[in-house]
């Protein structure tokens, strides 16, 4: 572990407990649990605007061109337009735990037991039929033409021409989060019963990774699709998806935290992962170091006074972290990790 001399590029504060950090192009957004999102310039932290969705927030995502910000929460969803600051807040009364953009002009929002596909004016283009439970997460396949949504009982895929699923990946249990690898080959879910379920997209061939001490609420592939990181505490596990996939292999274990509060892959192919824990630590890892089945040590770690509850990379050289008290810092990539 190298000593840290990296001073934050900027710091600021918001008046809420952040639950998500979103980033695209030159903007970052800090979503507060209470319902307000603060939009900032990524380079300086200068405020650009705020959006409030009454009832609280659960997720936030910028459109790829950062022209729009989508927010979702316990009682609805909202859209912010950068050009003129227009806010469309839709209080549907439906639990909305996820938003995901397919393209600069189209996004999916979990809304109760359905997923809705909206344009940038908030108009509904199409919607899925109701899932067996509240939809927990959504993700796009096939260049934004096919929508995967997770709920109790598995993952269902929908396309515009029919509200019935065009593909179903079933597995008993409550699926909390989806990760799709970027080439679309694998669909993975994190589960309430402390497992990761993996389907091969093509034929639905599946396997379960069990033995985690806690539920898997966070899991994500890096940009190359080779590495899948997840919580399930206290270790972060990283499975390798090269070749035939992870069946029969062992994961790397990253141990630094007691309970994991945030995971964020650095954009690109560096296999650098940032993570945060409830005890107030933030760690950077080279997930490809070490050997499968072994424990990897953090490359760089720092202890903070408050736990970091959300983080996102503003660019490959800047990680924006948000702590429970609303303190926001933009950290340059530690020198030891720059390639």
């Amino acid at each position, binding site marked *: 572990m190298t000593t840290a001399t990296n001073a934050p590029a900027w710091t600021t504060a918001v008046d*809420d*407990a952040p*639950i998500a950090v979103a980033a695209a192009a030159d903007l970052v957004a800090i979503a507060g*649990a*209470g319902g307000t999102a603060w939009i900032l310039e990524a380079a300086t932290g200068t405020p650009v605007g705020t959006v409030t969705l009454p009832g*609280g927030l*659960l997720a936030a995502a910028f459109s790829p061109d950062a022209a729009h910000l989508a927010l979702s929460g*316990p009682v609805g969803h909202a859209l912010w337009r950068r050009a003129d600051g227009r806010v469309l807040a839709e209080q549907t*009364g439906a*639990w909305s*735990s996820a938003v995901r953009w397919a393209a600069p002009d189209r996004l999916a929002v979990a809304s109760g037991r359905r997923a809705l596909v909206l344009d940038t004016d908030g108009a509904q283009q199409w919607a899925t039929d109701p899932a067996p*439970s*509240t939809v*927990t997460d959504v993700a796009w396949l096939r260049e934004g033409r096919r929508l995967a949504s997770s709920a*109790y009982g598995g993952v269902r895929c929908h396309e515009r021409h029919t509200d019935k699923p065009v593909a179903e990946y079933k*597995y*008993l*249990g*409550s699926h909390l989060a989806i990760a799709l690898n970027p080439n679309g080959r694998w669909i993975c879910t994190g*589960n*309430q*019963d*402390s*497992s990761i379920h993996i389907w091969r997209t093509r034929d639905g061939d599946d396997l379960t990774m069990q033995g985690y*001490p*806690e*539920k898997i*609420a966070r899991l994500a592939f890096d940009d190359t699709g080779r590495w899948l990181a997840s919580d399930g*505490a206290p270790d972060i596990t990283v499975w390798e998806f090269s070749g035939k996939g992870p069946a029969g292999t062992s994961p790397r274990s990253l141990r630094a935290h007691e*309970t994991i509060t945030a995971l964020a892959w650095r954009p690109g192919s560096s296999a650098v992962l940032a993570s945060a824990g409830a005890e107030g630590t933030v760690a950077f890892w080279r997930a490809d170091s070490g050997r499968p089945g072994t424990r990897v040590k953090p490359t760089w770690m720092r202890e903070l006074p408050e736990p970091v*509850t959300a983080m996102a990379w503003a660019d490959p050289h800047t990680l924006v972290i948000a702590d*429970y008290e*609303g303190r926001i810092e933009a950290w340059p990539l530690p020198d030891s990790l720059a390639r």
Partner: protein
Amino acid sequence: MTNPATTIEETTDQVDTRVPVTVLTGFLGSGKTTLLNRILTEQHGLRIAVIENEFGEVGVDDALVLDAEEEIFEMNNGCICCTVRGDLIRILGALMRRRDTFDRIIIETTGLADPAPVAQTFFMDDEIASQLRLDAIVTLVDAAHILEHLDEVKPEGVENEAVEQVAFADKIVLNKTDLVSEAHLTEVTARIRAINTPVEIIRAQHAKVELDKILDVHAFDLDRVLEGDPAFLTETEHQHDTTVTSVGIDLPGDLDQERLNRWLGQLLRTKGADIFRSKGILAIAGSERQYVFQGVHMLLEGENGRPWRDGEMRRNRLVFIGRNLDREELNEGFADCLAANSLAGGHA
């Protein structure tokens, strides 16, 4: 994480700072809404969040009221009767992420809801269990109508929800006592006790209950009734012809931890579907402290309680509430867990 086959182990003492959660249940018309409004409007200085399952008639500015639609999830852990409430997991999870903290959380369920998944959620989800504590299941009962509900004959395989709600309760608020005679109240009390012997019954009119009797009472884990005179535990005079009953055990002596684990594990694995609730205060051989446990169906968790006092008799008091319980088998099985050198002289 509590697994179906739970073992009893030593735990450290710590002040429990988790937020107490009260589950408030009862049939439509039992006075739940009146009680909730009373809780929310009374000058108690507490910040309360309410998670409602029924059409919201409650609305108070100071309190956070959230709607929930019951979502029952089976768990993929081989435990057949283990279900959790997905709606509560997500709502409580979001609540804990907020900066405004609450002193009390109340979960209101409908009279038709099964209390087991609500309770099991607190066993099965670590995120929730680390910050929230199931304090008590409080069942409101309409003194005038409860007997009809308890007597209602259901088709084969369908639960009588009123019986279940009485069986699961840590506290029963016997409401509308002004509408019935004392003789009727005595009969109702006897019927409730036949199902759930150790439950504390609080009589009320217009749902007027002192809040400190139902909120933050630690009734789920350590019932004060068990702490007091446990003679009633083994009392059988009120036995009615009912399939849901309580079996209380009061046995002096020390328990062999290994044998206890084996017996309890086996019992809950095989009979867990029928055992709604279990709780007890035990004397484990070699331990200076009382061992306190509580369970819902197959899930069980326990921790060390207060030290045994000087001169206090080391004894074991426990109760099972459930369907088709075999009193004799439970008594014998438990007696077999006594340590060989126990003063009470168990089976060697």
